[in-house]
């Protein structure tokens, strides 16, 4: 396939500013197809900005970002499946779960769902283990359920790259598998490229093929074992308040 000889994501000298304020400074990295990359860094370190730049929602001030060799604004919207932070959407919006999934397919809201869209959306909900939620009102869903609906929405378009902004990777009270496991299964089944921002260091350590430590600049881009060094983490987070977490990860590694 043509896509195979292009990097999934390639970032060169990328800088992003909000007015005069520099959010991302001179980033350079590339992601191969099939990689599972997690981004870790402090709040306000530019993680979400990086994701939005990849999605084409924010334009960089300097440098280049290419998705399979093309400008993020030029590619078909179906290349990227996006699972946003749950805090953004309007919980009072009257909708059924399946309608959200269908937007992943059509790229707009559907006045009525046609048969084909309905079928594919149901299949996507099945893939992530919540087909029973299809006709459920979204204001009745728990955070964990909603996140799966959003994952189904991202997967239904058969994306090349799955982009996730701080999903709750821990145990789901309702489902038998936690979100992280569902995600990993999907990644393996479809050989997806995954690019995920997370606060869950343990998850990043155990599941990703590469970890980016980001705080305006990139402090490490490496396999988890080499990225999660004490010095790199101290540099990224700029203080020593996370020492217990470093020990925790080290003990998990034993």
């Amino acid at each position, binding site marked *: 396939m043509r896509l195979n000889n292009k990097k999934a994501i390639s970032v060169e000298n990328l800088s992003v500013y909000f007015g005069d304020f520099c959010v991302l400074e001179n980033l350079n990295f590339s992601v191969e197809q099939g990689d599972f990359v997690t981004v870790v860094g402090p709040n306000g370190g530019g993680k979400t900005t990086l994701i939005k730049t990849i999605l084409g929602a924010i334009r960089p001030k300097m440098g280049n970002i290419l998705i399979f060799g093309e400008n993020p604004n030029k590619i078909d919207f179906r290349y990227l499946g996006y699972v946003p932070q749950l805090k953004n959407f309007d919980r*009072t919006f009257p909708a059924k779960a399946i309608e959200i999934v269908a937007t992943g397919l059509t790229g707009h809201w559907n006045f009525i769902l046609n048969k084909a869209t309905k079928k594919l959306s149901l299949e996507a909900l099945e893939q992530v283990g919540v087909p029973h939620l299809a006709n459920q009102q979204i204001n009745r869903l728990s955070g964990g359920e909603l996140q799966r609906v959003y994952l189904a929405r991202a997967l239904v378009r058969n994306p090349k790259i799955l982009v996730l902004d701080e999903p709750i990777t821990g145990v789901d009270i309702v489902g038998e598998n936690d979100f992280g496991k569902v995600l990993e299964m999907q990644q393996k089944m479809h050989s997806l490229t995954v690019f995920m921002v997370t606060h869950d260091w343990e998850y990043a350590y155990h599941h990703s093929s590469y970890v980016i430590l980001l705080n305006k600049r990139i402090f490490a881009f490496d396999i988890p074992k080499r990225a999660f060094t004490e010095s790199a983490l101290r540099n990224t987070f700029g203080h020593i308040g996370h020492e217990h977490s470093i020990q925790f990860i080290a003990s998990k590694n034993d």
Partner: protein
Amino acid sequence: MIETLTNIFVLRGILSGIILGFLGGYYGSFIVQRRMSFLGDGLAHVAFGGIALGLLLEKEPLWIALPFTILVAIALTFLKEKSELEIDTAIGIFFAISVALGILFISLNKHYISDAFSYLFGSILLVSEMNLLFSSFVTILTIILTPILWKRWTYTSFDRELAITDKINVSVDNYILSILIALTIVTSIKLVGIFLVASFLVIPSASAKLISKTFTQLTLFGIIFGVLSSIFGIFFSISLDVPTGSTIILTQALIFLFCLIIKNFNFKRKNSHNVQTR
């Protein structure tokens, strides 16, 4: 002779009511979901300044109010798109200036005070043939644009960020929406009056939202409630000989109350059902 004349007024009023009820319910669903009712209120008062000027100059007030209202709608959308800059303050300022100008124009006008009153409270006698033609034009425009824009406006109302990442030009869409809302407000003023035109665009959809499970239902119920309240409102207005704006909005309030009761009834029934199954 007088009877036919009355009939023509009544017919024109009812036809206009159906059209405006449709427009109010349709755009109301976005206004309610996006919590934009401040925009409707602000634009109605901006239109007041234009109408007062029109009356003073003895020109058709609609044509004077229209460009003002559209310009302010664009300016407010610009402020909103550029930043989260204090849009409330901006509306407050436009609002105050327009009302102040409106009052000035009305006091300069020695002949048409009673006309100005009709514009404040709404009257089917104000609805001219030209007014009816103009609202038909807005309706046709709306119907033509619906297959392209409803799905995008709705998606953006649900989650602006997702719409942007799916390559929807949210900003352009929002300008179009604001301009169409401005058109709807200006063309509704004669029937409903400046005081109540913002509510005219809010209450049918707010009622619809109480009983809707999907946004499609919200849009459809909003339109149905808008049209019904206009027809019944005009009927009450004629039979009681009171301003149309008042009777239309009170009919809408009754519908709202009805929806509230249905909602609570359903809620209680579901809850008692849950208790039983447990």
